[in-house]
Structure formats: C-alpha cells, structure tokens
C-alpha cells in the first residue's frame, strides 16, 4: 500500500484530475481569466525597475484581455440551454484521499460571470485611470502589480466552486487590499488604516473557517453543489451555525455592522484603490457570499433574519455617518457601507431579493466607482484636498468631472430612469414583502429601506453641492483644472453606465437570467401598493435633495469653512457613531488586559506562588532550596503545578 503511494508521482494526480465532462472551452477560458492578471502581477514584481517604463501598460492589458475572455464565456453561456448553464469543472485534485476530497475547481454560471464582467470591466477602466493618477509616483509599477494581484484574487473568489477555493481568493483580496491601503506606507495614518482592515478581515476569516469546519464535519464536503444538496435535510441548528459564521465572514469583508469600522480608514489608500476595492468589488464579496450560499440561508430562517437586521442597521448607520462627514472620500465610504447594507438586506430577503441585491451591486459598482474616480479627479485638481468645506463652485472649472459625478449622483438617488432607480427601488419594494407571513418584518425593514433612501438623497446631495456648487471656498494657491483624458474617459464610460445600465439590465431580463443560478423563489406581494412605495420613495428623495440644496447648494446658502459646533447626534455621526471608542472598549482594552494578565501570570503570579513554595522547600531541605535560584525555580514550579493539575484531571475523570 505504502509502496504504491510513494511510487505514484505527483504528476499523476494532475493527469487523473477529473475534467468535469460538460465544461465548454469557454468555461476553461475562465482559468485564463484568473491566470492573466496573476502572471502579470508576478512579472511586474519580479522584473523590478526594468519594467518601470512599460509596466503600467502590461498592468492595463491583463484585465482588459481578461474582460474579453469573460465576454466570450458569457456569450458561450447564453448559447446554452437554461438547464446547462451552471458548469463546474476541476483543474486538479487539491487535497484528495481519505475524507478530504477537495478539488481545485471553478464554477461558471450566471452569477459568477456577472461578477467576472463587472470586475474586469470596471477594473480595466480603473487601471486606465490609474495610469494618469499615479503618473508621478515612483512606485507606479508596483502599484499596478498589486492591482493585478487583486483582480486575480477577486476573480478566483467569485469563480470558485467550493468554499475552500473561495477562501483562497478571499485571503488573496484581503492581502492585496492590505498592500494597496498601505501603499503609501511612509505615512503613519495609512499604515494604521491597513492594520485596522487586517483586524476586521481576520475576524471575518475566523467566521469563514468555522463555517468550513462545520460543513466539513457535517457534510464531509465544502463544495457548493454538495453542501447545498445536504442543506435540504441537515438539522436547522447546523445550518444556522454555518449561516451565522458565513455572515460573520461577510460582515468582515463587506464592512457590515459590527465590523464596519475599517472602511472609513481604508480611504487612506490611493483613490483608484478606493474606487476598485472599496466601492465596486471587494467590499461586495460579502454580498456575493450570502447570495451564493442562498440554499443554506433559505433553510436557516433565523440566520436570514439576522442578515436582514445587519443589513438594515448598516444601511442606516452608513447613511447617518455620511450626513456628517466633511471628508469627501469618507462620506463616499459611508455611502458605500450604506449601499452594501441595502444589498445585504436584499440578499436576506431570499432568492427574489437576491437577484436585486446583485443587480444593485452591479449598478452600484458603476456609479460609485464613477463617483470615486470623480473624487480622485477633484483631489488631483485641488492638491489632494479632501475637505468638502474647502471646495464649492467647481462646476465651472471641471465640467466633465461635474457632469459625470452628476450622473452618479442621480443614479444613487434612484431618480428614474438612472441606474439606481431600477435596482434600489426594487429592493425597497421587496423589503415591503412579508417573508413567511411575518407582516411586522415587512413594515420594519420596508420603512428602514425607505428612510434610508431619503437620507441617501440628503447626504449625497450635500456632498455634490458642497463640492461643485455654492460659493468657492478654496484658497488662492489651488488652481482647479480638468484632469487629463486618461482620467476623464473612464469617468465618462462609468457615467454612461450610471445612466443606462439599470434600464438595459431590466429590459434585457437580467433578473430572469440570474434567477437561473439561484434557488427557486416565490414572488410575494408587498404590504403596500408598489406604486405607492415608488411614490413615497421619490418624495423622500426629492425632500432630502431639496433640504441639501437649501443648506449647501443654493446661492443663499453659506457653508462655513470650519465645521460649526453642533448637537450631540451630528457630533456622534462625525465620530462614526463612536465606533472606534466602542471597539476600543469592547475589543482592544480587554485584549490588552488579557495579554498583560497572561504575561504577568507567566512571570509574576508564578513567581509569587514560587516564593511560597520556596519557603516550603526551604523548610524541607536547604540544599534543594538553594538549587532553585533565578527564574528556573518558577519554571519548575509551573511544571509541578501542571503535573498536579493534570493528575487531578485524570483522577477526577476516573472517579
């Protein structure tokens, strides 16, 4: 037996790998989609300074070609009958044998290809933008290497066919985002921000690992199709534990309550990073995870309720914080958090809501990335100023930025027929549908979603008016000017998406297309008339925008350059609703105390115990006591205590 095992060369495992049979050549092309940016990243890192001249071109080409491959795979998928659109195929047996039977494989279906197209398309645009944005950074090549690494990891995450492969991508995007947030590591606050993101992500990873371990012990598999087939008969407790652990992971990655604190600080990274990672793609990975794990959440109604609650809290939390932020990027980050809250809420509503969660995710990817790029363009023009109180009246100087930002603004407000209208309004409508006959849930979550729409309109309008309208409040040293074409073209493309994408997706039947990859869902009727909801939403949006206009945009409005003294709620919102204080009190301080306690126990307590013991030993024999000098005696005492402890345990068990 042993003999054979050794004699089998590793290569044989590659040959023996199952090919899955039905996978088409286009589906196989998805390997290339991941491999291209990965190889490009490796080349850029290994080539060193020699590649400084052409590195950014390679960096742009990799996601662009990957996008083309994605389009090919997409049309290949469309050409298949609806029943054969979900394709799993395996490249090699990663951990074979025994109870671990894990292949390293991909799942190509409607959901994963939607993400592939989003990530590579928006990714390519942001790469192009970065060529100009990072033009003066000596380490631009390295920056592109990290961006490519991120794209590769993100694609692996969404294309994985098992939780374990997903986890590889999951850690990969975490690593890349860590590298990119801390890219300008010479500055203290940036390095601290990178650390904070690391902490939140580790908490999330813990959730992911627990989920995998439980799946593994209960179902002996972490492959999507096998786990989901078990989900129909596994015990509700098991499924709830798995679902909650997955939710914890999703919260860490997607900056959802209570792991939301890192996103605002992550804005310290370069702006294209914020656009790609902290708006369009990585932070939505949590939503992807929940939607992908739909069958588990379907069978665990309690966990689904928690998803709804987390989504609702986060969407309000982000909106409230967004209302008080003066830092343009942090306001956008709060908005991202809030919008992902919407997606999470929708994902918690079941398969029908999940479709709109993904649709909002796609449209949000366009308009929010567009607005971040716009913010980057403003910073580029204003010498990296981010304080909105020192902007104003920029519409005259940066026409393209202003117009493209306006498209994003109208889209996020949900003004028809802009993109956000088709996705966000649907989520609000779905939130008013009573799940499993629980009418109170429909009212609570529906109202929260509705209120969120009004708040969104207020803070986004506030941001838009403070930056582009009102009186000019910048200093004489700043000379606002439009950005170069390399930056404006991606902004224009994203703005076009912000205008038309919602309409296109709706007309093209995106919801039916995507539903093929998700579980069966039943359409329920909202507790309010759908048109009434739409009307109420629109009224709240207009009201929010109007208040913002009166206070920040109109000719009569005065925006003080220094933040005025305000009441408690706004102060709290400015301080991110005291999230850092809470985190510090709940996590950091007990953690420090634990460490201190452990260190003290290791030296102090034991030493104290030893003094007593030494006295005992002295009375037993002076010779013995004299041998026990220095720290060795305390070590020996620890051992003795350990022996006594273990003996006591074994005897206690015996009795």
């Amino acid at each position: 037996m042993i003999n054979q095992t050794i004699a089998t060369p590793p290569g044989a495992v590659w040959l023996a790998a199952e090919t899955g049979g039905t996978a088409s050549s286009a589906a196989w092309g998805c390997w290339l989609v991941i491999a291209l940016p990965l190889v490009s990243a490796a080349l850029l890192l290994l080539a060193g300074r020699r590649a400084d001249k052409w590195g950014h071109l390679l960096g742009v080409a990799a996601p662009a070609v990957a996008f083309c491959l994605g389009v090919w795979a997409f049309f290949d998928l469309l050409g298949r009958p609806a029943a054969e659109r979900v394709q799993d195929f395996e490249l090699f047996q990663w951990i074979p044998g025994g109870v671990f039977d894990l292949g390293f494989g991909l799942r190509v279906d409607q959901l994963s290809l939607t993400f592939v197209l989003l990530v590579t398309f928006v990714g390519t645009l942001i790469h192009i933008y970065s060529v100009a944005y990072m033009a003066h950074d000596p380490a631009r090549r390295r920056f592109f290497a990290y961006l490519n690494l991120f794209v590769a990891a993100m694609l692996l995450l969404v294309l994985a066919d098992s939780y374990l492969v997903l986890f590889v991508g999951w850690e990969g995007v975490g690593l890349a985002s860590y590298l990119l947030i801390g890219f300008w590591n010479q500055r203290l606050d940036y390095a601290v921000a990178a650390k904070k993101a690391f902490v939140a992500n580790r908490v999330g990873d813990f959730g992911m690992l627990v989920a995998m371990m439980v799946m593994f012990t209960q179902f002996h598999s972490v492959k999507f199709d096998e786990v989901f087939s078990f989900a129909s008969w596994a015990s509700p407790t098991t499924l709830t534990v798995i679902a909650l652990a997955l939710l914890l992971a999703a919260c860490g990655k997607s900056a959802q309550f209570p792991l939301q604190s890192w996103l605002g600080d992550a804005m310290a990274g370069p702006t294209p990073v914020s656009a790609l990672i902290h708006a369009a793609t990585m932070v939505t990975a949590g939503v992807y995870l929940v939607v992908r794990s739909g069958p588990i959440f379907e069978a665990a109604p309690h966990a689904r309720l928690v998803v709804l609650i987390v989504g609702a809290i986060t969407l309000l939390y982000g909106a409230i914080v967004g209302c008080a932020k003066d830092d343009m990027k942090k306001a956008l980050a709060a908005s991202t958090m809030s919008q992902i809250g919407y997606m999470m809420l929708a994902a918690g509503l079941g398969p029908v809501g999940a479709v709109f969660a993904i649709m909002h995710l796609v449209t949000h990817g366009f308009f929010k990335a567009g607005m971040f790029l716009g913010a980057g363009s403003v910073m580029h023009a204003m010498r990296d100023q981010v304080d909105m109180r020192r902007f104003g009246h920029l519409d005259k100087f940066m026409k393209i930025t202003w117009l493209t930002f306006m498209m994003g603004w109208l889209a996020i407000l949900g003004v028809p027929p802009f993109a956000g209208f088709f996705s966000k309004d649907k989520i609000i409508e779905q939130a008013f549908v009573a799940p499993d006959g629980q009418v109170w849930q429909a009212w609570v979550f529906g109202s929260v979603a509705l209120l969120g729409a009004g708040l969104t309109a207020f803070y986004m309008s506030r941001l838009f008016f403070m930056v582009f309208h009102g009186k000019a409040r910048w200093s004489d040293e700043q000379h606002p000017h439009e950005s170069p074409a390399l930056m404006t073209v991606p902004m224009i493309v994203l703005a076009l998406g912000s205008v038309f994408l919602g309409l296109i997706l709706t007309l093209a039947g995106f919801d039916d297309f995507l539903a093929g990859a998700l579980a069966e869902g039943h359409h329920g009727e909202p507790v309010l008339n759908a048109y009434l909801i739409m009307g109420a939403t629109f009224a709240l949006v207009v009201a929010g925008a109007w208040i913002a206009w009166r206070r920040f945009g109109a000719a009569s409005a005065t925006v003080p350059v220094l933040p005025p003294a305000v009441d408690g709620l706004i102060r709290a919102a400015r301080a991110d609703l005291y999230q850092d204080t809470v985190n510090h009190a709940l996590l950091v301080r007990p953690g420090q105390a634990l460490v201190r306690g452990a260190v003290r126990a290791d030296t102090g307590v034991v030493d104290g115990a030893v003094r007593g013991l030494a006295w005992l030993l002295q009375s037993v024999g002076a010779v013995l006591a004299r041998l026990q000098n220095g720290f060795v005696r305390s070590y020996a005492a620890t051992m003795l205590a350990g022996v006594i402890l273990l003996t006591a345990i074994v005897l206690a068990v015996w009795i």
Partner: protein
Amino acid sequence: MSAGTVLAATPVIQIEWGSLLPVAVVLGGAVISVLVEAFTPPRARRAVQVPLAFAAVAVAGLAALDMAMAPVESSDGAAGGAVTVDPMTMYLQLAIAVSALLGLLVIADRTVQGEDAFAPQASAAPGSEYEEQTRKAGLTQTDVFPLVLFATGGMMLLIAAGDLITLFVALEVLSLPLYLLAGMARHRRLLSQEASLKYFLLGALASAFFLFGAAWVYGATGALKLVEIGAAIADGAGLDPVLLVGVVLILVGLLFKVGAAPFHSWTPDVYQGAPTPITGFMAACTKIAAFGALLRLLYTLAPSLNWDLTPVLWTVSILTMLVGTVIGLVQRDVKRLMAYSAIAHTGFILTGVASFTQDGLSGALFYLFTYGIATVGAFGVIALVREVDPEGHMRGEATGLDQWRGLGRRSPLAAGAFTVFLLSFAGIPLTAGFVAKFAVFGAAFGAGGVALGVVGLACSAAAAFFYARVIVAMFFEDASFGLGALLEGGAAVPKGGLGIAVRTLGLTQIAVAVALVFTLMFGVLPGWFLGFTDELSFLLLS
C-alpha cells in the same frame, strides 16, 4: 510478574541490524566523529566532520526510505521488541533525517569571513582574555557535529522505542547533546549559557517525572513494553488510578520536550539563547521525535485509555494554544516570537492528537513534517540576518523586531523567504501550513472536539497578527523613514544596528530554498503526501 521472570522469558535477544540501520548509522557516525575529534589535527577537523555528518544522516535517511518502501512484515520489532519497526517509524525517521540534513546545512555554514555560529572554545569564560585569544587564533568548534549526530540518533531511536526503558534512554541520548549545544553561541555567550543551564535543569526535572511515571506504570501492569502495557490495560488494569497517574507522568516528560503548556517555560529562553542554527535543528527535529513518541504511546494505549486521557489532552492543548498565541502577541524579539509560535503550533498539533482518530493522526503527521521543514527554513533566515552597526561592522544576529525594519529593501530574498514561512505558520491558503491546520482542526471537529477546534481557529486567527507584524516590519516600515521612526521620535537606527542578511558559503541559502520549495509544494499539491500519512495512520491503528 516480576522483572526477573521477564528477563528469564527472553534469554537471547535477537538484534535485527537491518531494521535498526537508520539509528545505527547515525550513532555509529557519531562515535567515529568523536574519534575524528580526538585524532585529527585541528585544522583538518572541519573538512572531515562536515562530510561525515552529512553522510551519516543521509545514509540513515535513505535506509529509512528504503524500509518505508518495502516495510518489514514482522510486527514484533527489532531487538526483542525494544525497537518498533513499522511504517510510522520509518516515516518519522525519514522526516527527522530530512529536517536534520537541512539543519546541518545551516549549522555547517559560515560567513565569508569564516565565522560560524559557535563559540571558538565553549570552555572559555565569556568575555575573558582566553576567549579573545581563541577568537583571534581563528579556532573553530567542530564538537558540534558529533553532538548533533548523537542527538539525531537519539531522536530516531525515540520514535522507534517499543518499551519504556528504550524510550527513556533515547530521550536522554537526544537531550544531553542539546543541552550542551544550546550553550555554545558565539555571540551573547552569557544568554546562551544561561539557556543551556535552564534547559538542563528543567529537562532533568521532566526526565524525573517520566521515570517516576514509568515506575508507576510498571508497578500497575508489570510490563515495560508498550504493547504489553496496552494489553494489560485492556485486561482490566485500566481502572487503576496508579496506572493513570503513571501514564500522565510519562506524558509530562514528552509534553515537556514538545513545549506544551504548562511545561513550555523553557522554550522562549532556550530558543532565544541557543545558537540560531541549533534552535532551528532543535525546534524541528525534537518536535517531530517527541510528538512521534507521544503518538505511539497514546495510540498504542488508546483503545482502552482514550476516555481517561482525552480531558488531559484537551486541557493541555487549549492551554498551549492560548499561552503561545497570547504571549506571542507582545514579543519584540524575532527568536522569542518564533518560540511562542512554536508553543502555539504544539497546541495546534495536539488538537489533532487529542482527536484519537485516523484523521487526527494523519493530520498530525502531516503537520509535523511540514512545520519542521518550515521551521528549519525560518531559523535559517534568522541565522543569516546579522547586526550591522553604523560603522559597517558586522556583529551577532539581529533578532530585535525593530532591527528587521526595512529588511525587505536591504535583503529582499531573505525577507521574501521569511514571509513565505510566516504565511505558512499563519495558515494562509496555498502554503503547507494551511493544509496542515485544516487537517488537524477538521479532525478535531470531526471527533466532536468543537470547543478544541473553535479555540484553535480563534488562536490561529489571532496568531496571524504577530506573523503579520514581522511582515509589516520587513516590508512596510522603512527603518530610516518609517512608522517606527515616527512613533519613537525619529530614532532611525535601532540599538545594535540594523539587520541585514550576510554573505555566507551558501549552505544556509540552500536549506532555506529547499524548505521554501517544500512549503509551497505541500500547500499547492499536498495530495500525494496527505494520502501517504493517511495510509500510515491507517496501518498504525489497524
């Protein structure tokens, strides 16, 4: 049954030399090595000792490999059952041989100036005139090679030991050379000698517990062979508290060697004080050997004792993981940090051991080998990174974390390799460490040890922080203009000077490269190797 009748029952002990080849070759090599030390002129010693040591370990490894390929059918073992000959023995002997070879590469290496990691004369008082003279005379220590060979031989015997006496003798054969080796560091001699003394005293204590336990077990069962003890327990002696306490005391002796809490106290001091190449050798090989003995002991007695021992192992495992992780978080010295990391990993391996299932055993065997290899590699890098003071003089190893700042700029290859090892220790996917952790935690969950698994996952998540801190220090903090400098008020150059990888003969680099390849290979394609450990555990349990 008294001892007399045991001896009478086996009047002639057959020694099957073939089965004992790995141990015999290494110990034989050690004896020759001592003779070389006595009869060769000092200048020529190194040239003889280094090839001799490599040859002895390599031949032993090949012999073990050969036997693993064609396992001996008899299950009675060699030397009248004192030595067990089964696939697990061969596998672990092979693992020790591979780790020891890599360790020897680091031990035998010296800088281009001809300086190795060991004191020129271990007998010279630190800082004395005599020591200075020996240093100037360019004397080098070659005693380390026979000592390392003796230790390696002891380790190989330990995992094969079939009775308590052999187990004890092997334990001492491996320990005594290590006590000496720990005190031989060229730089920071006092710290090194202190470590040596502590290790010796505490090791003696642990041995005493072991011997005491062996006596109790003999008293309870009248047997010394593990198989016979197992049989005696199955016959009804399992309910005897004398036996239980005896087994626990034996376990203490082995748990001390693997550095499990609360028997871990020596680890940080010894890891820090010992010459770095020795730390790497010891950390990898001793852990494999002692865990091997622990596994054999537990799994031979397991069928009848696991219910009684499980709570003990759970306690030790959880305590070990917590101590290693929590205290590791505040370390500022790379070697001490690696010591607490080693403690935490002992806890992780114990979760697999405590599951008492085939999966757990298989996971633990996989973990031991991959961890051992990565550890030798990591300490190889630490051995390379030396202090350079502002005048450009090279001094001892730079182990302060602040000295490692910006190492990624100064020595990108060393820092890059160290990063891979750290990622593996942290259990990041596509490294061997991830697969290993997945295997042991999966086994723990599978055997109903949910608490054990959850503590393990939480600890491994938390432990990632201290690994990440080293990575951050190496790549994200430029020592001249970085986070640390800003925090500490512009003190750009840390005390003792910055660390930088020195140029050596290149042996350490080979060891690090091999360890790197193993770590990545077993992360990406662990399949055939996991299948192999699965087979081994199946054979051991059937």
